[in-house]
C-alpha cells in the first residue's frame, strides 16, 4: 500500500484534507448518466475471452500472484468475529506468505503485506492496534452494512465513529433503491454525505451489483458514485447472492476509464465476494491491465475483497517453488 504524504486543503468540504491523487468528485452530470449504454451480451463475450486471450504462467504467474496479495483486503465480516480472531487475521496480513517461500521466490526483501484489513466497526480499534507500525490500513465496512437501510444519521455517525477509531478506509453501501428507481440525485447526495463524513479516510462505495438488476445500472451507479467523490467503487458486500463477476468488473472498469478520460481523476476498483482461487485473482488482474492499464495493478487503485483467496494463492506459490501440489495445512491460518 503506497500512500502519498503530500496533502492540501480539500475542495470538497471545509474540514477535509486529502491526497492530491484523490478523486474530488464532480457535479452530478445527469445527461452523462442517462446516455449510458451497456450491451450485456457483448460485455459477457469480452469478459469470457479475457482469460483465454492472455496467459500468465511460471515466473510471471508467481509474480502476479504476489501482486495480488498486495492488493488484497483481507476480510472478516462474520457475526462471530472476536478480537482474538481479528488479531490473528492482522498477523496474517503482516506476513501473508511463509518466509521460506518468499525467500525461495527471491522476494523476501519486498516485505509484502496485504493491501488492508477489512472488518466491522466494532473491530476497528483491535485491528488498528494489531497493525500498528505495519503501514497496513484498516478498512471498516459501514453505513448499515450490508443492506444500508438504517437511518441516514446513524449511517453517517457510523462512518465518523470508524474514522475516529482509526479506520483509514471506509467501505460504504449505497441505497440500492436509489438506483432501481432512477433517483440519481439522491444517490449522489448520499455518497457525497458519506464522503464528507470520511474526511481523510478513503471512501469505497459498494454498489451491491448483484441487486442492481442490469449492467447499465451498474455503469450508471458507478458514474454517480465517482461524481460524488468515491475513491474506489466496489462490486459487492459479499452478502448478495451474486457477487463479483467479471462482466460486472468489466462494466465498472469501463466506467472508471470513461470517468478518468473526462475528468482526469483516477478511481480504484474493488471486486469483492466469490473470488476464491488464484486463477480468479489472475483473471481480475488481466481485466485491470487490459482495460485500465498497469496503474490499476497497484493497491492504491485495485483491491480484492477476499477471505479465502489468500490460502489458494499460498498453495500455488508453494507449488511454484517445489513443483509439488501443496496442501492448505502447510500454510499458516489467517
Amino acid at each position: 500500500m503506497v500512500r502519498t504524504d503530500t496533502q492540501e486543503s480539500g475542495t470538497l468540504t471545509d474540514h477535509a484534507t486529502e491526497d492530491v491523487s484523490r478523486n474530488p468528485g464532480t457535479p452530478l452530470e445527469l445527461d452523462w448518466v442517462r446516455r449510458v449504454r451497456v450491451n450485456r451480451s457483448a460485455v459477457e463475450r469480452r469478459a469470457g475471452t479475457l482469460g483465454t486471450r492472455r496467459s500468465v504462467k511460471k515466473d510471471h504467474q508467481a509474480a502476479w500472484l504476489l501482486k495480488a496479495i498486495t492488493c488484497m483486503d483481507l476480510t472478516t465480516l462474520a457475526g462471530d468475529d472476536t478480537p482474538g480472531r481479528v488479531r490473528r487475521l492482522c498477523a496474517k496480513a503482516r506476513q501473508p506468505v511463509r518466509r521460506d517461500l518468499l525467500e525461495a521466490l527471491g522476494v523476501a526483501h519486498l516485505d509484502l503485506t496485504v493491501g488492508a484489513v477489512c472488518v466491522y466497526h466494532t473491530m476497528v480499534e483491535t485491528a488498528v492496534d494489531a497493525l500498528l507500525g505495519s503501514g497496513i490500513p484498516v478498512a471498516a465496512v459501514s453505513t448499515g452494512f450490508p443492506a444500508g437501510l438504517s437511518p441516514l444519521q446513524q449511517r453517517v455517525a457510523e462512518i465518523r465513529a470508524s474514522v475516529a477509531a482509526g479506520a483509514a478506509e471506509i467501505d460504504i453501501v449505497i441505497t440500492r433503491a436509489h438506483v432501481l428507481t432512477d433517483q440519481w440525485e439522491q444517490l449522489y447526495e448520499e455518497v457525497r454525505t458519506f464522503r464528507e463524513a470520511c474526511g481523510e479516510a478513503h471512501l469505497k462505495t459498494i454498489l451491491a451489483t448483484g441487486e442492481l438488476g442490469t449492467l447499465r445500472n451498474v455503469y450508471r451507479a458507478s458514474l454517480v458514485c465517482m461524481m460524488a467523490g468515491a475513491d474506489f467503487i466496489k462490486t459487492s458486500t459479499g452478502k448478495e447472492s451474486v457477487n463479483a463477476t467479471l462482466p460486472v468488473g468489466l462494466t465498472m472498469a469501463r466506467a472508471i476509464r470513461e470517468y478518468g478520460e473526462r475528468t482526469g481523476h483516477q478511481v480504484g476498483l474493488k471486486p469483492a465476494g466469490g473470488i476464491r482461487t488464484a486463477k480468479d485473482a489472475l483473471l481480475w488482474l488481466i481485466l485491470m491491465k487490459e482495460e485500465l492499464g498497469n496503474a490499476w495493478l497497484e493497491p492504491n487503485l485495485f483491491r480484492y475483497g477476499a477471505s479465502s483467496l489468500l490460502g489458494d494463492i499460498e498453495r500455488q506459490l508453494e507449488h511454484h517453488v517445489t513443483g509439488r501440489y501443496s496442501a492448505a495445512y502447510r500454510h499458516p491460518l489467517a
Partner: protein
Amino acid sequence: MNQKIAEIFETMEYGSAPESTERVVEWLEAHGGTFGHFIGGAWFEGSSEPPQLFETHNPSTGETIAKLTQGSDADVGRAVQAARDALPGWRALDGHARARYLYALGRGIQKRGRLFAVLESMDNGKPIRESRDLDIPLVARHFYHHAGWAQLMEEELPGYGPVGVVGQIIPWNFPLLMLSWKIAPALAMGNTLVLKPAEFTSLTALLFTELCQDVGLPPGVVNVVTGDGDTGAALVAHPGVDKIAFTGSTDVGRIIRGATAGTGKKLTLELGGKSPFLVYDDADLDSVVEGVVDAIWFNQGQVCCAGSRLLVQESVAEVLERKLRARMETLRMGDPLDKGIDMGAIVAPVQLDRISSLVEQGKEEGARIWQPSWSAPREGWFYPPTLCTNVAPSSTIAQVEIFGPVVVMMTFRTPAESVTLANDTRYGLAASLWTESVNLALDIAPKLKAGTVWVNCTNLFDAAAGFGGYRESGYGREGGKEGLWNYTKPLWQSEKGGDRPYGPKHGKDTGVVDPGVGATPAAPGSGRDGMPPIDRTPKLYIGGKQARPDGNYSLLVRGRDGDIVGEVPRGNRKDVRNAVEAAHKGSKAWTPRTAHNRAQILYYLAENLSLRADEFVSRLVQVTGMKTKEAKAEVEASIRRLFSYAAWADKYDGRVHHTPFRNVTLAMPEPIGVMAVICPDEAPLLGFLSLVAPLVAMGNAVVAIPSERWPLLATDLYQVFETSDVPAGVVNIVTGLHSELAPVLAAHDDVGGIWHWGSAEAGAEVERLSTGNMKRTWVSDGRHRDWWGATQGEGEEFLREATQVKNIWVPYGE
C-alpha cells in the same frame, strides 16, 4: 533463487506462454515429413514420377514444416473414381449408420483437439487461442450437428437424395473448419467426395484422413488430394464430379462458374466480402471496440466475412476512433502458439505483399493510416493492425477485399444513409450492426444485402445457422437446414424418366417466324359485318404498361394449321434493359408488401384467369394444336398453381435456429430482387405461371421471357395482370427469340438471378454469361419437367430458388 520474479512484480508484464509442438513434430516425423494424397482409404504417393512435391511453411518463422504432393490430373481422376466406387454403398447406407460415422468424427476431433489446434496454428499462423477455442470446437460441432441431419434425412428431406460425387475446394484461412463445413453436410446427405485443401494449409486435412481411417469410414467416401490451383481446376473439370463446392476468392469462383457452365454440375460458392460494420449513435461504444477487434483482427483479418468497412454515425465517430486507437495499442501480436497473443502471422508472403501494397495504395489515395506504436515481429510474415480514416467509398481500399488486418472507417448521418453505404458494394457476405434500439436493429437488418447479419456481435458461427452470400459473395448456404439442399437433389431426377429431354409434345409446325422483309401476311382474325378486323397485335408489358418494342419488329405466330394467328413484338436488348429497370421499381413497391397482400393478389390473378378460362382454352388449342380437353386441363392446372403460390406466400416461413448462444438466430428467406425467367414451351401457360408465381409470391419482381413458340398465352395475360392489382413493374414480359433475349438477361449485372427452361446448350450459355455479377442460376439442363404434377411442377424447390436465406443473429439480455 530468482531475481526475475521480483522484476516482473515491478513491471507486471505478460510473459510468453507457448503451446508445445512436441506431438505435432512426432506426427510429422512418423510421416517422414512428406505426405501423399489420401485416396480410397489409403495414402497414395501420386502418379507423377518422380513425385512432384511442394513445401508447406510455418508463417511465423518461414520454416518448412512438411512436403506435400502436387495433385496431377491423374491423381484427381483416381480420387474421383474412388469416390464414385464408394458412392453406391455410402448412399445406400441407412441414415442412422451415416449418423454414427459423423458422430464418431465429431468425437474424434474432440479427442485429438489439441493436436489439430497446434497443427493448424503452425501451418496457418493463426493464434492458438483461435484454433483451440473457435476453429476446432466448431469443427466438432459441425460433425455432431450433421450427424443429426443424417439421422433425420428421410423424415426431414423426403423426396431428396444425394447429389453424388462432390468436389470440394477450400481456402487457407480456416483450413479444418472449412473442411468440416464441406465434408459434414456432404456425408450426412449420402454423398462421397474429393476434397482439395489449400496448398498453404493442407496438413490438418491430411491429419483428418487418419481420423477417417480410425473411425472405419468406408474407403473412398472421403478422399483428399493436395495441390495448387491446377489441381483444383482438374477437380472442377472432371466429368465424374456431380457437384462443386468452393470457398475462396470471387475471381476464382467466377472461373469455376464459367468452367462448370453447361456440365449439369451443381455449384455452391462462398466467395469474398467487404462486409460493413455499422455503428449507430446509441451503441455501447466500448463493446463496439471489442466488436471491431473480433471483426477485423480475428485471424489477422483473413476472414471472408471480416467487418472491414467500419461505418460510424458521424456524431460518435471521433469518440470511437479514439477508443479504437487506444485499444489497438493493447493488442498483442506474436508467435501464434503463444497463448497470450491476439494476432498471429499472415499465411504467406504473397498475401503479406497484397496487404502492404493495398495499404500503400490507400495512403497514396489520401487515407490516414493508423497503426499501434509497438512493432510487429520481424521474423516471419506479420502485418500490424491497421485503421484507415479519411477514406471515402470511392477509395480503392474501401472497395476491394484486402483480406488482412486493415479496416477502413467512414461516417454516415442517418440510418437510411447507413444502409445505402453498407450496400454500396458488389459483395454481400455479412454485416454487423450495433445499436441498443431494437427498432433500429430490426429495421436495418432486413435492408442489408448480406447473407448473415450480426446484431451487436460479429463473426459468430454455428453449424445450425446457414452461412453464405448475397451478390458476388456467392450462392448456397453452409450450415442449418438451408445448407442441406446444396448436397441433395430431387429423387425424381434419378428415377426412370427423370432425364427425359426437354421439349413440348404438341404443335410440330407451330411457333413464331420472322416475317422477313417480303410480303406482309394477312392480318389474323376476321372482321364482322363486312368491316375489316381490328388489329390486336400485343406489345411488350413493361412497368405495368403495354410498351412498343424498341426495335419495332414483330414475329409472326403460326397456329395449329400453319395459319398465322397473330404477331408478337420481337424484343431486343433495349427492351430487356427497360424491363429490368421497370422491375427494379416494381421490386421497391412489391418486396415491402405483406405476404398476405401478395397472396391476395395471386388469388385475384387466379380469379381473373378463371373468369377468362374459355378464352385461354381456345388460345391454347389455336396455337399449339392440343386437344380442347388438354387445354382445359392446362388452364385448370394454371389456376390451381396460382392458388398454390397464393397459399405459400404467407407460409414459406423462416426458422429460428438453435445456435448455442443466448441469442435468437432468425433465418429469413428473402426475395433475391429482380429475377429473370426464360419460360418453357412445354406448357406455354402453365409453365409461365409455374415460374412467375413462386417468384412473385416470395416478393421478387420478374422479367419474364415467355415461351418462344407460343408467346400469345403470356401476352393474353396482360389484361389479367392489369385487372388483378399487380403493381406496375412486378411482372414484366418481353416476347421474342430466346437466343436473343436470354443472353442479355444472363449477362445483365443488375439482375439478381435467372431461371432458364430450354435446351441444354442455351442453359449452358446462361450459366456462362452469369458470371459478371455472379447471379444465381437455375437451369433445366435440357431436361423435361412435368409441370402438371405437384412433385416436379411446384412447391418448395421453387420457393427455395426464388429466395435466399439471411441469418440474423440477435443476442439478447439486459
